């Protein structure tokens, strides 16, 4: 061992305590770190505020025709039957028949008919809308402005998000439009997507965790799944367009099953596209859930002479199920908010008919939000905001369910 040329006994001579400066730097940086998080939180709050702000506020509108031209009673007090008569008498035959074709007039609700009354006969004309903040902070100015600019207009504070907004079908007029068609479309889509992806995804996860040998092929499959999870959703849209809409048109349009008057741009095509899109997410989540089941359980089952599948079916799956469900719900909420692939696969721009099966044309909640947001008129922005609130509440419910499920069944091994 070489003799170390040792340092002298420490005197601390060459060291200059700069602690105060170091601590100052530390404080500055720490506030920067926290500040970044705060920015994220502030943006989230701004986003929520922005949406709520858009969904409520003053609206100034005029009637092209006065309601009194059609009826002596106040419109809100008209019964369904009275409304039917008024509509039949005043609408052109063609227009009436078209409405009747969409949905038989007699089966429509009173509020639906009342909407038609205002939309088609009275012809409400929105002059201007204001956001909630403007309405609350500058109420007097708005009133003065309206009195001057639109002397005939009615000014009222309106909540765009109403029960009627949820139940009304699509309309070309923002004031009467609702999200029923879109919500039903979304439910169909995620339903098909999950029906497709959950069994296959779980099966794939079981194969990869329980059966697959550790070799190059398995590792390619695994890498491929991880990669698919990162493929842009619009690429899945293109895949859906090429495969489901075009190549498999006779199946997805329902022609195979005797459905006519339809092309490949159906709920089925879009649902399968979504299913392919969420498949990698479901596989990865299910793999995690299966991985969390301890080996001792498998060994115990093998130890009493169970086959591999018996072990999986009776022991592994039941224990992994909460995790698989949680993962699937998260995948579901991803599908619920996805927009781009639906545009590519061919969501309808205007559709007021409820979807009645997998071969219907479709629209979905995010598609409506997209279309309404990109319209120039501010009243469409207001219903876009309302639709966003509906979508966010749906997503919140789903995620809350997932969290509850996770906490309820979470097991510490």
């Amino acid at each position: 061992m070489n003799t170390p040329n040792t340092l002298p006994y420490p005197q601390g001579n060459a060291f200059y305590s700069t602690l105060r400066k170091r601590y100052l730097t530390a404080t500055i940086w720490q506030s920067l770190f926290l500040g970044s998080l705060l920015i994220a939180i502030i943006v989230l709050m701004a986003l929520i505020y922005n949406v709520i702000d858009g969904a409520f506020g003053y609206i100034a509108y005029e009637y092209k025709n006065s309601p009194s031209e059609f009826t002596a009673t106040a419109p809100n007090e008209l019964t369904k039957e009275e409304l039917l008569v008024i509509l039949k008498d005043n609408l052109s035959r063609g227009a009436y028949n078209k409405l009747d074709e969409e949905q038989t007039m007699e089966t429509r609700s009173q509020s639906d008919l009342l909407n038609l009354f205002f939309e088609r006969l009275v012809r409400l004309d929105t002059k201007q809308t204001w956001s909630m903040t403007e309405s609350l902070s500058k109420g007097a100015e708005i009133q003065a402005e309206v009195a001057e600019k639109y002397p005939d207009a009615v000014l009222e504070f309106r909540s765009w998000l109403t029960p009627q907004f949820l139940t009304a079908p699509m309309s070309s007029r923002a004031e009467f439009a609702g999200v029923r068609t879109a919500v039903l479309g979304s439910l169909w889509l995620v339903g098909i997507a999950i029906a497709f992806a959950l069994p296959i995804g779980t099966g794939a996860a079981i194969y990869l965790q329980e059966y697959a040998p550790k070799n190059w092929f398995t590792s390619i499959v695994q890498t491929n799944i991880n990669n698919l999870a990162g493929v842009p959703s619009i690429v899945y849209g293109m895949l859906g367009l090429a495969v489901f809409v075009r190549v498999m048109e006779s199946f997805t349009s329902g022609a195979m099953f005797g459905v006519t008057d339809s092309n490949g741009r159906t709920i089925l095509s879009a649902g399968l596209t979504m299913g392919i899109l969420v498949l990698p997410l479901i596989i990865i989540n299910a793999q995690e859930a299966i991985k969390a089941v301890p080996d001792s359980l498998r060994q115990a089952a093998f130890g009493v002479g169970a086959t591999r599948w018996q072990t999986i079916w009776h022991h592994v799956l039941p224990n992994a199920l909460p995790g698989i469900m949680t993962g699937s719900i998260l995948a579901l909420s991803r599908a619920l908010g996805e927009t781009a692939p639906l545009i590519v696969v061919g969501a309808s721009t205007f559709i007021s008919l409820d979807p009645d099966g997998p071969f219907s044309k479709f629209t979905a909640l995010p598609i409506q939000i997209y279309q309404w947001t990109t319209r120039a008129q501010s009243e469409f922005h207001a219903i876009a905001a309302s639709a966003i609130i509906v979508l966010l509440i749906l997503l919140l419910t789903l995620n809350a369910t997932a969290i509850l499920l996770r906490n309820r069944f979470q097991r510490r091994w």
Partner: protein
Amino acid sequence: MKEEVIHLKSLEAQSFRHFDLKKKLRISESIIQGLLFFAGILSIFVTIAIVYELGKEAMLFFALPDVTFAKFFGTTKWQPGIGQYGIWALVSATLTTSTIAMLISLPLGLASAIYLSEYASPRLRSILKPILEILAGIPTVVYGYFALLFVTPILKSFLGEDLSVYNMLSAGLVMGIMILPLISSMSEDALSAVPRALREGAYAMGATKLETSLQVVLPAALSGIGAAVIIGISRAVGETMIVAVAAGAGPNFSFNPLEAAETMTGHIARISGGDLSYNSIDYNSLFAIALMLFLVTLVLNLISQWVVNKFREQYE
């Protein structure tokens, strides 16, 4: 006691008598395993289908006598209908919006990750993390609404007429916020994976928390953070709805964030959302763009995965 033993023995005689250890053919087991195997490799077929379909249609596009690689990669106007095939008109917008997004999400995401991993108490973490998760769960079309109707008007009040109603700046900024939770959570994982011994080594030498975090933990987690950045870029390049709503409709070769321009994804969304007839040049050109998108994100994702795996090996 004695009676029971006799009873058990007689039971054994009835049902466990034969010892046949030959391999049995369990048909249902084999069928199930076959089905599971098929489910397992279905994802391979998805990838093959993507490559095949995108490639096939893209080849139809590139096979047109008018379309050359020189034109595709060498010119800056995109309008296949009238013979202009310069992909740069779309790539420029993708690059601009993605760059802005990364300029926002990288520093903010990394700083958030450091705070969550190194500073926040478990209690504070349990409050802050879900907020980031909410941010990550918001559909991108909602971000689009936010960009167009909140961020753009605010930017306009600072920048005035220089800023067009549709602009890459607003879309890029909001995209940055969208990607922030991703960068933050992946970086946090990387930071937490740095062994405690390394932190203790730094503290034992009289380092402050900041010096430990920035000069020891951060460099040690760098490859994991690199992976997060790559995934972030891949997300930014592939993001559609924010740019479709807020960045503008119409190809525009420009790197000026104040201008309106259309990204590759935004272009696909707009054209395919309109009336599009199969086998038209527009239709085929979309697949050429989508193929490019797929390949770019594929390469980015592969690199990122490779980096993450390397990083894991380092500490396991």
